[in-house]
């Protein structure tokens, strides 16, 4: 399932997908990425999701390959490093009520 609009960049951060610290070397990133691809190819449950501040997200082979591609590019890696520091979101703000059966009550249904 595609992430909601505006959340893709955060949810698909390569450091989160590969579960690596931002200080990880390129060699460590490649090793971890290949390990995850092998685990995913045999369907291991341990590789199926990765943790994020927004809760666990599904990990796929495409996402792992995309993460490796980002970390190989120094410019894209620098931006991903910035975004990897994202904290969890705060609590949801209170919302105004929705009177969901109003049409029925007022004779429109």
């Amino acid at each position, binding site marked *: 399932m595609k992430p*909601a*609009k*505006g*959340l*893709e*960049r*955060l949810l698909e951060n390569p450091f989160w997908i590969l579960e690596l610290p931002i200080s990880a070397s390129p060699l460590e990133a490649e090793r971890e990425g290949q390990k995850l691809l092998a685990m995913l190819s045999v369907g291991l449950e341990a590789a199926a999701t990765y943790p994020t*501040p*927004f809760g666990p997200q599904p990990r796929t082979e495409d996402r792992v390959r995309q993460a490796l591609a980002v970390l190989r590019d120094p410019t894209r890696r*620098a*931006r991903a490093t*910035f*975004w990897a*520091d*994202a*904290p*969890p*979101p*705060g*609590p*949801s*703000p*209170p*919302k*105004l*009520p*929705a*009177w*969901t*059966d*109003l*049409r029925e*009550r*007022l*004779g*429109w*249904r």
Partner: protein
Amino acid sequence: MRFLPILLLIGAAAFYASFLSWVLQDESSPQKPPNSNLATAMGWLVLPAGVVFGFMGVWAGGFGVPLGIALVVVCTVLWMPLTIAVAVAIPLARPRIAYALARLSTLRAEPDPVGVAMAVAARAAGRAPSPDPSIEPWLEGRAAKRPLTPGMVLALGLSASLFGHDEEAREMIALVDAFDDTITDPWITRWAHEWLAVEAAERGDWVAVHRATHGLGRRSTTTRWLGAVAGRFLDRPDAPTEANLDALWQSFPGHRKVADLHDQAVAYTGLASEPVAATSPLQAHVHAVAHPTSQTLAQAVHLWSAADVDPAIVADALKDLQGAASRAGLPLRLPKEGPMCPSDVLGGDPLEAIEIASNRLAHRLQSGDTTDRQQDLRDWLHLAGLLEAVRRHEDPALLRLAFRPIYSPLCALSVSLYNDRNERHLSNALTRWLLFLAQEVGDTRAVALQTQNLAASRRHA
């Protein structure tokens, strides 16, 4: 001589009955439904007299009782058929009976009798436990050979909502306001605004409730109560007092069915304050994309615009905020100065969508494909919806950019509707819509042209 008044009354009754049969046979005519001031005057004379004679017959006793009762019933139905349709046929979910009764309504001055009857039928259809699939084609058949009127648009919108197409219904019913007052029945205006307000309240969109309940045109007592509730929920300066809110609540029929909701509005004291302000743009950004509201988005934009960060990261961040804002149906107000202007952040998506839709309409008109009225309405609604998405950004320059590709094909559509297809009311409504839009963007040439078109269409109405 003494029988002369009775003979005159019988003659007037016969004349009125033949007029009624002419009205009901007129279903397939593309012309304006028949109207006759003389017949209406006869009706006002005959029907109350019939009720009185009926009661006299009942009082006289004997054979007079059944005859008197029959006369009272028939004359009452013919005297107030619309009231009976609304009070009886709608709650009993009888759309075809509701339609027939409403079409009998000739004593009440109606600029749009077929439209009102269709709207009454659509309301009755909405009360059925499950939607009847035959009702939509039946309603469309009633409108098929006549110029589209605001009552028909309301009926078609209500019919769409029967099957869960609320967004389509919303866009269509909002068009009722675009029609000229001379063709719009006051009941249609009241029902359209009430439906829009009630549907918005169901979604919790109290800004839309406020918009539907304020402005020009008549409002029902239910609509006024919802407007007051919206004022309270939105903390508006003109929000009603508890006493005023109570008075509005008690003023509409069936108010007891919403007593608990009314109590909720009375007890409302405002939303809890936002969490502690974010200290970094990243923190504000995460909160805004996870929970997009006007406040969280504004806070994030403010912190990004002041941040000492790689401009490419700021650009990415603003694009993500735009995505979150559009997901929540909110505008994203960007700083007037700085690295990003709104059209850059938008990435041209809505403007591109407007170009594509406008070109498609222009191509359809040029190829002569102009027979499907529903398609014309859909094209108009689609472009109006795309324009509304642009309008939410509150950027006049962006709106002017969006206006240019929309204007020409819709202008051509309006002309085609009027000249080639006898859809003068729909053409007039589209012309009015284009005029308001031209005024909004400040295009004086377009304003002058649409003003001229409106004047010409009124002269020939």
